[in-house]
């Protein structure tokens, strides 16, 4: 399938979005068993123009999943294994002295960050200096090396992974940097059936072959058009107020904050959280065949969009209160505005 036609009708564009999304999920599912929600969130983040933080133990197929998605969508893919001695230049790239025709000059050699899909494995193992280099690229979609700014080609998505174990010698991401990820998804262990399927697929001779949806040369543009379609989805004013009330309800001391929020949170979500909610809800609406957002679309997006934006206090840590449980309480107690 090629890119969307230039003068396609709105209905065709919506239908095409749903088809591409569905097929991408199916193609990734050829190599990744289970984790449908993670795959969906990864694709959602791509079409929202955001980045995703995946938390899971090693060996769950995170790298394979991202690689499969990039192959499916015809996008370039790079992987960075973050280690404590990793330097920013190792990621961004650096100027190297080259000699050509008797002339020596510095030439910029792009790092692995220059790709459409970048997998930052165990990002919390790198030093904050290196982390910040990646985060600048994530936010600005550009890097600056020796005073020269290099723009990253769209679409651009960073998929960072965190290992919840072996936290010794790691550098947990600061809240400001966590805020830059649109989602944080938790990748759990596969179920027994899924594990059996994984074994069957990976220990035999058969290899699943992924069918790309776009030609690599046209893929970026097609993806960008689909991203534009997402932003065309309409949101009614009452729903915008609902999103605002959700953000306010999760902010300690904010309007409509429930007692648990004030008790267990130090800080609530930033406006980026609200942006993430709307964009994710828009993708959900398109996937449901609608061109307007519903309350259900928003509710589905609340936990993945806001769970990493809530800063728990000591009491919450001591009582093992998770941000997910607080968000569920907030959603339960909020009344959806009618007008």
């Amino acid at each position, binding site marked *: 399938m090629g890119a969307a036609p230039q003068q396609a009708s*709105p*209905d065709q564009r*919506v239908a095409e979005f749903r088809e591409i999304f569905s097929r991408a999920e199916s193609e990734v599912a050829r190599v990744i068993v289970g984790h449908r929600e993670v795959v969906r969130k990864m694709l959602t983040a791509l079409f929202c123009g955001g980045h995703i933080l995946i938390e899971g133990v090693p060996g769950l197929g995170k790298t394979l999943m991202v690689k499969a998605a990039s192959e499916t969508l015809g996008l370039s893919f790079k992987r960075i294994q973050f280690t404590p001695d990793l330097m920013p230049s190792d990621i961004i790239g650096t100027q190297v002295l080259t000699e050509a025709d008797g002339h020596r000059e510095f030439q910029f050699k792009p790092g692995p960050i220059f790709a459409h899909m970048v997998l930052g494995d165990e990002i919390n193992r790198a030093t904050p200096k290196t982390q910040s280099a990646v985060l600048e690229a994530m936010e600005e979609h550009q890097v600056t090396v020796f005073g020269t700014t290099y723009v990253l080609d769209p679409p651009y998505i960073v998929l960072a992974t965190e290992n919840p174990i072996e936290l010794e010698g790691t550098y947990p991401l600061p809240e400001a940097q966590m805020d830059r990820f649109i989602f944080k998804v938790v990748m759990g262990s596969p179920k027994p059936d899924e594990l059996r399927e994984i074994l069957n697929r990976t220990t035999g001779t058969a290899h699943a072959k992924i069918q790309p949806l776009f030609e690599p040369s046209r893929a970026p543009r097609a993806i960008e058009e689909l991203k534009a*379609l997402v932003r*065309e*989805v*309409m*949101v*009614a*004013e*009452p*729903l915008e107020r609902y999103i605002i009330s959700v953000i306010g309800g999760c902010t300690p001391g904010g309007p409509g904050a429930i007692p648990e929020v004030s008790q267990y949170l130090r800080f609530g979500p930033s406006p980026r959280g609200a942006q993430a909610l709307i964009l994710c809800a828009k993708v959900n609406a398109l996937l*449901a065949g*609608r*061109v*307007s*957002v*519903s*309350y*259900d679309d928003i509710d589905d997006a609340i936990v993945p969009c806001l769970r990493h934006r809530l800063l728990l206090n000591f009491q919450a840590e001591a009582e093992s209160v998770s941000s997910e449980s607080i968000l569920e309480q907030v959603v339960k107690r909020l009344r959806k505005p*009618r*007008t």
Partner: protein
Amino acid sequence: MDNPVETIGIASARIARLAAIRAVLCAVAPALTAIALGVLLEPIGKVTWTRLGYRLAPERAGVLSLVLIGAGIVVLAAGLIMAFRAYRRANDFVAAAAELDDRLECHQEIVTFATLANPSAPESIRARRTPLFPILWRRAIALFGGLDVRREFRLEVGEPLKRSSIFAGVVALAMVLATLGLVRAPTPENTEAAKLRAIAEEIARTSASSDDSALADKIRQAADALENSKLPPEEKKARIEEAMRQADKAAQKRNNSQSGKNQAAGKANAQNGNGNGKSQGNSTGAGNGEGKSESGAGQKLGVESSGSGKGNTGKSSGKNQGGKGSAKNDKNDQNKADQSSLELHDELAKAEAQVETANAKNPSPDKQPGADKNQGGGSQPDPNRPGNIPKPGANGDRNIPAAGGNPKNNKDMGSNLGDTHLGEMPTSTNAQRFLKPGEKGAALDIKDARYVMFRLPGAPTSGNGGKTVLDTDRPTATTGYVNAPLAPTSDDAPPDERQLVPPRYRDMIH
């Protein structure tokens, strides 16, 4: 309908109307209840507290009735205001769309459409339409395809009426509580006034003459005066006496007219001759002066028949019986009139007595001892206090019949004459409680006697085998006993046993 904007507009208007109706319905029941209770307070009182023997003062009943009617009107007005506000509030395009959205389960598509297609929304809102808006428009048309706004938004009166009935119950309860707080057990004056009014009603109902109507009016006035606490007792008594006079006059007139009729009947009987002894006897019976004018025809008919019916005893006898019956009715009516007249007199007399008793119990402030300038002690319960000594010509004298007859001749009558006994001491009129020696029977020398001893009868003999026991321990008198005859006591003339103290000594006695 092809235009979803129109559909939402119609739904909005419908929702607003229903909201207004619901608001009015909420207020209607309590308002009507309050007004109805206010209007029907008197009939309700007749079947409830009046029947139970309690009384709600007319002025209080009037105020309560006005309050209830006023409250009803206020609630009704508030309901109308609330209805207007509800209409304004519910007449919202986006809110109506949200309502439709909920009912049709459209996942906020209609709300989004209404937000962007609201005719009254500013242009900046419309500018937020995206190229996908036509899809939303078509979706709205499809969703409204089978929609009937009237059927979808029906007038549900159950819930508002239920809520309204609760408010109505609250109003009724408030009225009941207010009534409980306001009703009182009737005073003797009220009871007497009610009886007088009943008699007046009876007179007004049964009689057609102007005298009887006037009498009924007088009785009513007397009843009103009796209940009116602001009227002085003299005025009350005057009204009652006026009614009595009117009653006497009416009774006298009735008697006069009756005697005239009896005379006429006697004449008629004399014309019949002596042909029929039985008939004569009957006529005599009717001529006892108790027959009424309307029975005259029957009597006459009976007499004529008997005169012409010689030898036809059965016929004449039958007709005479008719005449006899008529005479009997006359007698009954006369008896009734007499009875009611007596009853009226009795009630009026009771009313008068009631006034006097009330006056004795609650003397008017200007006649209270404590209010007198010469009495510094105020109204103390101690009878020895100077302030409690009745002044001659005040309360005490009024209750004591004057020795000379008419109490109006008493010089000290009325307390505004000043301290008249400084120069002329008033004569105590009822100071002697015992008969004078030799006044009745042989004189008993009980002068300086301090005790009067009575000999009690012996122990009673017990019956049915019981033993008779004599009380030998009983003390017996050593001297001969005397039984001093006491003068008959009079309720309305209490003995004036207290000694009057000249004012100049009053402050010295404590």
